[in-house]
């Protein structure tokens, strides 16, 4: 049996048409319960108009990230017992993004910056060529491997105070994607990547606060990726090649 019968859950409600306001619900407590379970219980049993987003429920799709007691988290894999403050939880939409309604944040700026950081494939071969063999033990491949498990949940973007203070800043996820492609032997345009990340709002805007790496639910290290881009762009500025 759980130690408590009910949780006191405060949910931020509102959106572009209505100012954000907190609303508190009493939610039954269970032994095994994630924050997403709690939000779903409210929507299914207390207020069907509560808006939130989720899909896979197993930490793969990156849809359900929210602010939980001031920390951005993937709610489907955040156990209530790990985040309870006394008997209370406060849930809000992701920080640093526009709110569509209640707990659903508008992810457009996040994905637009992914493209702005040149986070797209620049092929080295055509479909008519044989597949390129990749050596898994090279330093470059290991750097690329370190970042490929990103699920685009925007937790790092939401955790970053540089994003909060500089709307042009590309943010940790987009820059980590750029660093991954920069180290990918199958990417043909490294210069385009470095051009995209060395301008205003690029990797040099990062203040190395490290919230991205601290809060990444997949335990990735966007801070180190951004530092890699800083080294690569600086080396290129002084005439060095990769």
């Amino acid at each position, binding site marked *: 049996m759980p130690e408590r019968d009910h949780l006191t859950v405060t949910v*931020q409600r509102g959106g572009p048409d209505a100012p954000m306001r907190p609303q508190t619900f009493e939610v039954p407590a269970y032994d095994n319960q994630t924050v997403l379970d709690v939000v779903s219980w409210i929507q299914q049993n207390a207020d069907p108009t509560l808006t939130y987003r989720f899909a896979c429920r197993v930490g793969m799709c990156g849809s359900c990230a929210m*602010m939980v*007691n*001031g*920390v951005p988290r993937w709610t489907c894999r955040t156990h209530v017992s790990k985040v309870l403050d006394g008997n209370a939880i*406060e849930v*809000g939409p992701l*920080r640093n993004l526009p709110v569509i309604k209640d707990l659903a944040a508008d992810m457009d700026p996040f994905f637009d910056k992914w493209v702005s950081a040149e986070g797209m494939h620049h092929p080295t071969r055509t479909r008519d060529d044989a597949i390129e063999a990749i050596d898994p033990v090279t330093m470059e491949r290991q750097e690329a491997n370190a970042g490929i498990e990103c699920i685009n949940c925007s937790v790092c973007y939401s*955790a970053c*105070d540089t994003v909060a203070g500089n709307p042009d800043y590309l943010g940790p996820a987009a820059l980590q994607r750029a660093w991954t492609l920069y180290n990918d032997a199958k990417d043909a345009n490294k210069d385009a990547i470095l051009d995209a990340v060395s301008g205003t709002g690029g990797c040099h805007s990062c*203040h*190395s*606060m*490290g*919230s991205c*790496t*601290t809060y990444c639910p997949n335990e990735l290290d966007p*801070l*180190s990726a951004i*530092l*890699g881009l*800083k*080294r690569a762009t600086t080396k290129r500025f002084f005439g060095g090649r990769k």
Partner: protein
Amino acid sequence: MKVARAHPLWLAYLLHRLSGLGLALFLPLHFWVLSYALNDAAKLDAFLTLTEMPLVKMAEFGLVFLLAVHLFGGLRLLALEWLPWSAPQKTWAAAAVAGSFLVSTTFLLQAI
């Protein structure tokens, strides 16, 4: 919602910023006083008697603290940005620096 951010890297960032601000505020005053060494030695000596006051001595302690914190914060940033080491390498390097600092400070304390 209050944002939680008090993790070690963020605190290191904050300490570096605040110590830098403190030093930036101190430096103009410092150069202003130093300018008396060239223009008015008597006035400089008169001003330097202030350093005997306990409050000024305490402030000097704070100044040395800001300098030390900002120096090591800067070295930390340089290492972070220019040494692409793995986490265990960084741990060993930090342990080696701390160990050598302990040994050398012990010798220094015996010498004085």
